[in-house]
């Protein structure tokens, strides 16, 4: 039970728990607001194997806990690791707030423990603030020169794609996450064989021709190192992916672009008359020109 000192300390702080992203490039992408909360935390619990991350955190906070080695166990269901991670974070937030849970990338992009912590914290009366980080997706858009504003973007977790038999829109750029961990909820660092990816390849070939070229991208995680990209036809997906780093994300460009079919609306988008029908314009607001 919290003693009086802890209660006093708690009353001075706006939050008991921060959930933050550290970016994907060591310490170089740590934002100023994240750095601020690291420095006011009584403990930082983190999952990030990036070079220099622990060193940096140890300068910002006296008490730093690497959750990776105490959570992940070879061949153990990953959900157990996530339970252990979330439990340690919540315990720390109850014991000696404020604390920070710092994760690789963005805390709400493919980080289940963040969701676990948020849901449980609400029930436990903990005050939480979540701060964004630069995610693999952010870097991927740079590597690909892709702005999702043009054609949209669809992205799926690889195993989830298969579990739910999700349809893919072949005219929309597609990103597949956690391909290296497809078809298992267990933690394993062992290399994969082509058989692991055959079901995924078969699913993709329902929507794309076998000669359609995809890319596997290992986004740069260090300032002096480049991103790496392998291109291969989807018909060779199962044989090519095992030769790549486990962390490579897959990008599938559209087979063809979808044409504008609503020509009237296209014309309306540059029409003052149309705009007048969908906004309330001030009487004295003059037209340009």
């Amino acid at each position, binding site marked *: *039970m919290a003693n009086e000192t802890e209660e006093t300390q708690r009353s001075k702080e706006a939050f008991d728990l921060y959930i933050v992203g550290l970016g994907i490039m060591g*310490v*170089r992408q740590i934002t100023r607001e994240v*750095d601020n909360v690291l*420095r006011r935390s009584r403990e930082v619990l983190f*999952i990030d*194997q990036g*070079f220099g991350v*622990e*060193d*940096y955190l*140890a*300068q910002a906070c*006296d*008490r730093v806990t690497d959750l*990776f080695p105490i959570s*992940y*166990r070879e061949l153990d269901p*990953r*959900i157990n690791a996530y*339970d*252990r991670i*979330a*439990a340690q974070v919540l*315990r720390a937030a*109850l014991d*000696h707030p404020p604390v920070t849970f710092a*994760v*690789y990338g963005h805390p709400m992009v493919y980080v*289940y*423990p963040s*969701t*676990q912590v948020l849901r*449980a914290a609400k*029930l*436990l009366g903990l005050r939480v603030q979540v701060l964004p980080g630069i995610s693999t997706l952010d870097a991927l858009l740079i*590597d690909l020169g892709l702005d999702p504003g043009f054609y949209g973007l669809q992205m799926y*977790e690889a*195993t*989830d794609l298969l*579990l739910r038999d999700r349809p893919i829109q072949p005219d929309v750029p597609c990103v597949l996450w*956690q391909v290296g961990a497809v078809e298992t*909820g267990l*933690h394993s660092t062992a*290399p994969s064989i082509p058989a692991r990816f055959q079901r995924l390849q078969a699913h993709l070939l329902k929507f794309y021709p076998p000669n359609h070229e995809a890319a596997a991208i*290992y986004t740069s*995680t260090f*300032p*002096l*190192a*480049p*991103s*790496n*990209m*392998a291109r291969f036809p989807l018909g060779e997906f199962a044989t*090519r992916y095992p*030769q*790549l*780093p*486990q962390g490579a994300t897959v990008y599938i460009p559209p087979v063809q672009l979808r044409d504008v079919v609503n020509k009237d609306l296209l014309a309306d988008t540059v029409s003052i008359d149309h705009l007048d029908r969908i906004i309330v314009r001030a009487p004295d607001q003059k037209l340009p020109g």
Partner: protein
Amino acid sequence: MPSADLRRLLLRVQTDADFYNLMLVDPQRALAGYSITPQEQEVLLRRDRSIYQFLIPPRPKPTVFAEKEPEEPDEPSPPSLNLTLPPLPPPDPLLGPPSPHPPEPPLPEPPEPPDVFPNPLPPNPPQIFPDPPEIFQSPPIPINFLSGLNVGTDVAEVPASLITTIQQSSGEERVQGIVQLLKTLDRR
């Protein structure tokens, strides 16, 4: 494992913008103050994915998980490594003086400005894996998500007694209570 000086250099690249810039425009000058092996220097000058071999964390000692894990001490644990830390931005004055850092080699005097100012960050498109591609050593990227979950907006029925137990307990008992709560909230 990188040598001590290489480690110091790799940490500095991430936190010292001037040094990083010098590594891009004149790496020989940037490396001049560091005692690194010819092989390490060659990799740094190449600036390709082979640099990742220096960034892989040492494999953690095998963890022996007892039936019941010991409680963590409340006192902060001492740093596990003898760290040589890179300089940081000025700290918050409210937090007191920063811890002392060993001095970094000073950056060399800037060269004479060239006639045409070079782009310090030339376009650097992703390198293409050779054909056939090969696995390269890379730092592990944590797999932090699990598929097949149905996480809705509804709040599962959680016994009030469980919340009370968590709030009033401590140590391992508190952790076990939280794990029970998390499992109640999971929906598969």
